[in-house]
């Protein structure tokens, strides 16, 4: 019951956040120099004042500010994010076409970073003064300091040019046809480099957190208790300590998911991965603000949903929170 109550509370708070994002989008559209009609007119190469007035009323731009805001919110609530004039398609439809690719990339990178980061962090924490621990710290510093697009390009040069074992762009071979398995393997082959690149920064962050939290946990009283029961080191570390040490990593992963989505923009651009991020890059080149803001809105929506999920899974792992 308590769980249900807190779920309702979380969901309604998330909806409030979403509303705030919509308002932010609206404000950005308004504060930014030039409105949609001006952009459209410029695209058309000029128009008569009558046509401009007509367009303004079509877009609802002749209404008062609160009226426009209300209209905007209602439209967004109905799932209408506007039309992209460069693609001449609804923004929602465009994003939906790219969503799967982005989610595959982001979730793979997330798993990779959390999993590898935790493992590295734990191994480093067990021998804090060893060479390996120093190596993990070094890797972590390097991953944190390298710009992600540069890491991607370096990986491309290394593994797609010098040692050509991975494809350099896209998500699958153009024109390839076959069964599900070969399609899956094809996508996997294309996924390796972008996912590694995106994971690299967060791998650094998570291994650092995992190392610190593992060292903290290993010094705790209940680990001493576990040892006093004669449990083997493996059980002590990977059963008793791990479940506690992984909690801060999960918190961080949830908190940083928004950064991961943002990082995908850059990685998708480098690897021509056909996701939302690459479309954001194209939207910038074509000055398609409706599409760009649509992507911002949608990315935030994903972040909010993921935060909710993280919160719930955290509750499952840590019995102290109800």
């Amino acid at each position, binding site marked *: 019951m308590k769980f249900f109550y807190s779920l309702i509370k979380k969901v309604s708070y998330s909806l409030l956040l979403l509303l705030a994002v919509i308002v932010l989008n609206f404000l950005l559209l308004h504060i930014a120099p030039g409105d949609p009609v001006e952009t459209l007119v410029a695209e058309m190469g000029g128009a008569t004042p009558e046509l401009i007035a007509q367009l303004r009323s079509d877009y609802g731009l002749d209404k008062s500010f609160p009226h426009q805001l209300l209209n905007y919110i209602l439209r967004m609530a109905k799932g209408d994010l506007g039309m992209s004039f460069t693609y001449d398609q609804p923004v929602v439809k465009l994003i939906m076409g790219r969503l799967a690719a982005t989610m595959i990339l982001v979730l793979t990178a997330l798993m990779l970073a959390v999993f590898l980061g935790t493992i590295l962090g734990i191994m480093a924490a067990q021998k804090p003064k060893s060479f390996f621990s120093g190596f993990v710290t070094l890797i972590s510093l390097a991953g944190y300091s390298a710009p992600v697009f540069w890491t991607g390009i370096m990986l491309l040069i290394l593994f797609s040019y010098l040692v050509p074992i991975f494809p350099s762009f896209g998500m699958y071979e153009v024109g390839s046809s076959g069964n599900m398995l070969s399609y899956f393997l094809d996508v996997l082959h294309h996924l390796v480099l972008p996912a590694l690149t995106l994971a690299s920064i967060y791998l650094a962050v998570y291994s650092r957190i995992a190392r610190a939290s593992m060292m903290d946990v290993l010094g*705790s*009283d*209940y680990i*001493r*208790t*576990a*040892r*006093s*029961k*004669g*449990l*083997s080191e493996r059980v002590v570390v990977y059963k*008793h300590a791990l*479940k*506690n040490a992984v909690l801060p990593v999960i918190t961080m992963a949830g908190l940083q998911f928004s950064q991961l989505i943002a990082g995908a923009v850059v990685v998708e651009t480098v690897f021509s991965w056909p996701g939302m991020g690459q479309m954001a890059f194209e939207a910038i080149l074509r000055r398609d603000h409706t599409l760009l803001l649509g992507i911002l809105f949608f990315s935030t929506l994903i972040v909010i949903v993921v935060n909710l999920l993280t919160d719930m899974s955290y509750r499952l*792992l*840590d*019995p*102290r929170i109800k």
Partner: protein
Amino acid sequence: MNKEPILKIEDLCVDFKTRTGSVRVLHHINLSVKAGESIGIVGESGCGKSMTALATMQLIPTPPGLISEGSVLLKGDDLLKLNEIQMRDVRGNEISMIFQEPMTSLNPVFKIGMQISENIIRHQGKTKKEAQELSVAMMRAVKIPGAARLIKRYPHELSGGMRQRVMIAMALSCQPSVLIADEPTTALDVTVQAQIFDLLRDVQQDMGTAIILITHDMGVIAENTQRVVVMYAGHKFEEGPVDEIIHHPKHPYTRGLIRCTPHLKKNMEHEREELSEIPGIVPDLSRLDGLCPFRPRCSEKRRQCDEQMPQEIQTGDGHFVCCWAAGEDQ
């Protein structure tokens, strides 16, 4: 009562490596406990009592710690000669330990039943189901109400006293020969303290477990043990039967400790002073000079104290003391 001791610690020395060199935290500690007997180790914090317990269990983090000399004989076998794998069969099985903080000594993310039955599965090779049943029985034995229900609870859902009972159930689940209780009630309410000690006494009678009780409280020692070892700065100062020590303490430090304990003070002969405290603080272990470490705080300091460390002498039946002043009284 003239049985052979079940656990005998001889000449135990522990060193810790620090940046400025090696520091000796235990100096040639000797003590023993027989089956069914309770002995106490008493002293201020940092005197080495918990270190003695952890060294017995070989739970000292190595490095920086190192057991450099001595032996720990369990039923005649030297535990220090066992390797880590063999030692794991002793921990939780032959020798168990309960700790000061019941709040933090149980793993917060595992159910209580699992934490108790884990010990049983580890040492007795029972199935999960059998171990669960034994856990419930064990929890009943330590008088936890509603044990069958509580095994599905997490530690944070229990009170401090209940958690300490869970710790005791866990420690006793394999019928160990020796139970080391390191300040088991310090973090608990006074009324709960008494219940826990009653419980320990009951299970001791049922199982014949030897108990080593570690505390800073002379009062607790007086009520719950038969013999006591007084420690200070890694040294054993005095050892003897509880009644003897309380009524005729030989070491100035022991006298000081008793004087600090309200309801014990009246037991001491010729003692009319007010309740007092021992002046000064426990010395920095890295600055010891091989002489009596209590010297700077001692009100009965003599010339010899600045020249040589006193040897342990026997002053009565099973009463040993390590002090120049006590030697002169003879």
